[in-house]
C-alpha cells in the first residue's frame, strides 16, 4: 500500500470518527437509553386508569385535565413536537424539555412514566375538542395591523419585549392563546414578569424582571436596555401582577379567531437531532 493511499484511508477514518462523535455529542442528554422499549409495556386498561390518576396530579395543571393545553402544550391534538413513538414520549416525560418550563420526572418510577405515556396516547386519540375556525392568512394581517411585532418576534423579525412567538403554535393551545390576547395578565410566563422601581431621587423605571437577589435587581426596559439597580438606592420595588401587554378584549371576534389561527399555525420544524 503506498503512503498516499494509507494517508487517505487514515483521513477518511478520522473524518468518519469525528462525525460519529459529533453526532453523539449533539444527541440531547438522556435520549440514548439502550434497552428502553419502542412500544409501551404498560398499556392495559388498569395501566390507563393509573396513568389518568398520575396525569391529573402531575401534568394536568399545565396541560389541562383533558389534555386541552394551557401553560403546557395541547396533548389531545394527536401532534407531538418531540416525536410520536411511545419511546419518544416516554423520554420527553422522563427528561423534560430544555429551555422550557417542562420539567423532567427523574425520580418517578419507569412504570409510572409508561402509564402516563399510555394515558397521553389516549388523550391524543380524542382529537382537539375545540376546532380553530379562523383564517391563518387573515390572522397574519391582524398581527401586522395591531403592531404585535413591536413587542413580539417571529423567526427573528420583530422586537424582544414580549415572548418569541416563532413556535407558539406547538407550545400553546388555542384556548390559552385566546386568553392571552384577551386577558394577558391571566398567566404571565416566568421570564416576562414585570417590575417597576423608584429610586431614592424619585426616578421610576419599569420593564421585564430579569434577575434579583437580596441586594440588587435587574430589568430590560421597554427600549430593550439592560438596567441594574442596587436596592439600597431604591425607595420602592413593585412587582405588578399585570402583564406589560395591553389587553385586546375589544378585538372584533373574527379578528381574534383569525389571530388565534395564525398564532396556532406557527410551528418550527423540529431539528433532526
Amino acid at each position: 500500500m503506498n503512503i498516499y493511499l494509507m494517508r487517505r484511508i487514515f483521513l477518511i477514518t478520522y473524518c468518519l470518527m469525528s462525525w460519529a462523535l459529533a453526532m453523539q455529542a449533539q444527541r440531547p442528554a438522556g435520549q440514548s437509553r439502550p434497552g428502553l422499549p419502542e412500544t409501551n409495556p404498560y398499556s392495559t386498561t388498569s395501566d390507563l386508569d393509573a396513568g389518568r390518576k398520575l396525569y391529573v396530579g402531575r401534568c394536568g395543571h399545565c396541560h389541562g385535565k383533558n389534555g386541552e393545553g394551557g401553560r403546557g402544550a395541547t396533548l389531545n391534538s394527536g401532534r407531538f413536537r418531540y416525536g410520536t413513538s411511545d419511546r419518544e414520549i416516554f423520554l420527553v416525560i422522563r427528561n423534560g424539555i430544555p429551555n422550557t418550563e417542562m420539567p423532567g420526572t427523574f425520580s418517578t418510577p419507569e412504570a409510572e412514566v409508561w402509564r402516563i405515556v399510555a394515558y397521553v396516547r389516549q388523550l391524543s386519540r380524542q382529537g382537539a375538542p375545540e376546532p380553530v375556525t379562523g383564517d391563518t392568512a387573515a390572522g397574519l394581517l391582524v398581527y401586522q395591523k395591531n403592531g404585535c411585532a413591536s413587542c413580539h418576534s417571529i423567526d427573528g423579525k420583530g422586537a424582544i419585549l414580549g415572548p418569541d412567538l416563532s413556535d407558539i403554535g406547538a407550545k400553546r393551545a388555542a384556548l390559552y392563546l385566546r386568553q392571552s390576547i384577551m386577558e394577558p395578565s391571566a398567566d404571565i410566563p416566568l421570564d416576562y414578569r414585570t417590575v417597576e422601581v423608584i429610586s431614592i431621587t424619585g426616578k421610576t423605571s419599569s420593564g421585564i424582571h430579569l434577575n434579583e437577589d437580596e441586594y440588587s435587581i435587574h430589568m430590560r426596559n421597554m427600549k430593550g436596555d439592560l438596567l441594574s439597580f442596587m436596592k439600597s438606592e431604591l425607595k420602592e420595588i413593585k412587582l405588578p401582577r399585570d402583564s406589560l401587554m395591553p389587553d385586546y378584549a375589544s378585538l372584533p371576534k373574527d379578528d381574534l379567531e383569525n389571530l388565534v389561527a395564525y398564532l396556532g399555525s406557527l410551528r418550527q420544524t423540529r431539528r433532526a437531532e
Partner: protein
Amino acid sequence: MPEKILRIVSLLGVAVLAMVPPLMGQSPAPRGLPVTYERLLKATEEPGNWLTYGGDYRSHHYSSLKEITVDNVHRLRAKWIYQMHRPKVEATPIVVDGVMYLTRPPSDVIALDAETGRALWTFEYRLAASVYTCCGQVNRGLAILGATLFITTLDAKLIALDARSGRVLWKKDLADPGLNYTATSAPLAIKDKVIAGIAGAEGGIRGFLDAYDAQTGERVWRFWTIPAPGEPGSETWKGDSWKYGGGSTWITGSYDPELNLVYWGTGNPGPDYNGDVRPGDNLYTCSLLALDVDTGKLKWHFQFTPHDTHDWDATQVPVLLDSTFDGRPRKLVVVPSRNGFHYVLDRVTGAFLLAKQYVRQTWAKEIDKKGRPVLNPNQDPTYEGNDLVWPGVDGGNNWMSPSYNPDTKLLYFNAREERRRYFKTDAPEFRPGEAYFGGGGGGGARFRPEESWGRLIAMMPETGEIKWEHRILTPPWAGTLSTAGNLVFSATPSGNFYALDARTGKELWHFNGGDRVFASPITFLSRGKQLVTIPIGDILIAFGLD
C-alpha cells in the same frame, strides 16, 4: 579515592538529600491528633477547631472566637477557594489544628491545609453500586475519633479512614443499596462508638439508627425506627406497610453525656404522599428519639407529625439547652420542626413543653397540650393536586444547622415560607431502584414571590418568641453560625454569604458567591487567625480579615 569518584559520590549524595524534603512533604507529620473522646466532650474549649458536625455534642453550631466582630466584619476578604467540581455540596467540615477534613459528593474525603486550602490527601470513593437517591448525590460530613475519620457513603457503607493519609482502615455495610438504602449524613463519634444514620425513605426503606465499634467496625446496636409486628408502636402500622415505612435518620443528632442519651430525628413515612396504605400514626416516623448510647434502647420518643402526608421529616438538628422553663431549671431540647412549629421538650423525659408556629402554616389548628396537632380539613394531597397548603414540601425548616448563642441566648435558624401544591397517586409497590413517593409536592404550580420567601429568625428558644428576623428573597437552604464576635453568618439561595449583628439583626457584610448555597458555615483558627468558611455552589471558600 580518586577525585573523580569523590565528585560523583558527593553529587549523588546531594541528589539523595535533595529528594528528602519532597518525600517528607508527601507524608506530613500528623497535627493535632488524636482527637480523643475527652476532647470531643470539651469541644467548646477548643474554639480554634471544629470537632463535630454540630460544633459540639449539644449541636450549638456556635464559636467563642471573637477576632472577627461586628466592628471589623466589613473587612472580611476571600482568602482561598477549594474547587470541588461536584454539584450540591452540603458538607460541614471538621477542623483539627490547621487541617480541614471535608467531604464532597458523592462520598469523597479531602484533607486540606486550612491556611492555604491546598489538598494534603484525597480519598476518592467509587460507588460499589448504582443507588436510587431522591434528592441528589450529597454528603454532609464526617466524624473524627482518635486519628480516624468516619464517613457514610451514598451506597450505604460506613468507612473508617486514617486521618493522616486517607487510607481505608475498615469498611462496613450499613444496608443493601440495592434495596434503596443510601447514606448521606455525618456520623457522630461518642465514647468508643460511631453512630450512623441511614437515608432512603423516598425509596421505601425501613429506617434504623446504628452504632459501630470505632476500632473494629463491628455493629454494637441497631434501633429500627419502624417497629416490627408485635413490637411497641407496631399497632400504628397496617399489614405489611411497616416493611417500607421509611423513618430514615439522615441528619446528625446530638448527645447528652450526663444522661447518656443520643437525640436523633427521624424522617417521613413511606409512601410520602399517599397515607392510605398506612393508617395510624406511623411510629417512629417524623419523631425525635432519645436512645441510650450504650445499648440503643429507646428512652423516649416524641412524634411531631403523626401520619405525615407532606414529607415533613423531623430530621432537623436537635439543639440541647440547659435553661429555665416556667421558672425552673430544665434540661431542654429544642427543634424548629419542618412542619412549621418550634418545639420545646424536656430532654430527660421527653415531656412536651411548648410548640409555637414560626412560619405560615395551614395544616394544624393548633398543637394540643400533649403536643399532638389538631388537624385542619382539606390539607392532604389529592389526585388533582391541593395547592392550598403551607408550608411547602421542604418545610418551614429543614436539615440545615441552627445556631444557639449563649451570649445572646438566641437560637438562629433559617425559615422557609412557602406554599406548595401537593398531589397524590396510587400507592406504589416497592421496587428496587425506584421511588416510593405516592405523589409529589410540586406539579407545575406557579406561585407569586410573596408565596415563596425566607427569613433568618432570631428566637428565644424557650418561648418561641421571635426577637428579630432578616428577610431573604427566596426560601433558604443554608445553616447558621453565631460567634462571640456578636455575629450571625448565613447565606441565601442567590449565593450571598452574609453577616448580621446577632443582637439586632442589622446587616453588616455580604459577599456574592454566585451560586446556590446548601450548607452551613463554620469558623476556626488558622495560624492564630480566625477564618470563616462555607460551601457555595461547588466551591468551599474561606474568609478572613484583610
